[in-house]
Structures are given as C-alpha cells and as structure tokens.
C-alpha cells in the first residue's frame, strides 16, 4: 500500500526531505513497523529513527502512539517534540 510521509523541523533537515509517497512492504501496517522500515533506508534514517531519537507521529493530522494502525492513503507525519507557544 501507498502512504504519504511528511517530515518537519530538525527531522526534515536531517533527512533532506519534506514529503514523499512510498509503497510499503506487506505487513508494515503500524506506526512502529513503519519507523522500523524507515530505519533500514540508510544512515540518516537509521540515526533519525534510532531508539533514543525523540520522534512524534501524527496520522492524518492526529497525534498517535507507536501502536497506531496505518492504512493505504494515510498521511503520516514525523516530527520532533513540539516547541510552539
């Protein structure tokens, strides 16, 4: 299935990309599995999604926990903890 990925702030700069569409391998259907999958995409991703990296996730503009399901067509955004206000 295809999903849209978005990266923000420091994470966007670290990965050198703001948005992309990717085809996910079968079985990658949770946020945790997607993060694991992204980690395998090379050094920058491995570092960005390492265990100690603080990365938050929103699915279709809703903040979610790693166990959240993802389905075809979802917009999955990754970003550092927010610092507004």
């Amino acid at each position, binding site marked *: 299935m295809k999903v849209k990925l*978005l990266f*923000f*702030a*420091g994470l966007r700069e670290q990965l050198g990309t703001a948005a992309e569409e990717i085809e996910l391998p079968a079985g990658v259907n949770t946020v945790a599995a997607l993060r694991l999958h992204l980690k395998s995409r090379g050094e920058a991703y491995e570092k960005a999604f390492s265990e100690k990296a*603080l990365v938050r996730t*929103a699915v279709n*503009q*809703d*903040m979610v926990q790693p166990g959240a399901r993802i389905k075809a067509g979802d*917009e999955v*955004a990754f*970003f*550092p*903890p*927010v*610092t*507004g*206000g």
Partner: protein
Amino acid sequence: MKVSVQREDFDLSAEVKALSKKDTSIGAVASFVGIVREVAMMLEHYPQMTESSIKRIVEEAQSRWQVMDCTVIHRYGELKPSDQIVLVAVASAHRGDAFAACEFIMDYLKTRAPFWKKEHRPEGARWVEARAADDDAAERWAGKGR
C-alpha cells in the same frame, strides 16, 4: 471560537474587545500573550494540522470549564525579539474559569500543537529543544477541571 494561524501580528486590545462584546453574560476575559525572548527565530508549523489541533485543545477546555468564547492566534514565520508570538483569550462569566482555561490552553498548546522554533543564534541557527517542564505543566491538568 476564533483560531488563527498567521504570519501577521495581532492587536490584543481589539481581540479582547471583540470577545467581550459577544454576549452580555460575559463578565471576565483572561488573556495571555507570548513574546519572543532575546533571540530572533523562525517558527515552522504543520499547516493541515495546526488549526485543528488548537480547536481540539479549546474544546477540551470547554468541557472542563465554563468558557463562553475563546480566541487563539499563533504566528509563524520570522519573528524578532519582543515580537508577539501567541495570544490566548478566554471569555467567561467569572474570572476563575477564565484564568484556568487560559492557562490550560497555553499548557496544552505548548506540548500538542505542531509548531517548532528555530533560533538564529550568533553561532548559527539551532532548533529549540522541547522542555520537560512544559510536559510537566500539561500533565498537571490530568483529571482537573470543574
């Protein structure tokens, strides 16, 4: 409820006046203005999510306190020291609800609305790191309210 995410500055007095005139049973407006401290910065946000996340925070406040109306304005883009960043103004019949809801909305906004600050420091630009104290401030509202 008015929620606006904008580049432009805002006028506290005009916003508070507009809020207080909405209903004659409004007896209190509590407002908070966040100001850029010391260093110029760029504020990035997640446009499709920002407004909806702020609306959800205001709705949460409305479920806990008597909030008759509310205005939240958050700026993004380039900001200089002493610029206004954020406004939260809450109208209620009495001050207690207005104060509490205003503080609650700010605390939640700090930890849940998708904004990120990048400071332009003399030694180079630097993303601001989230503070544990902000998480603690939001956490203390768990289970509180009317």
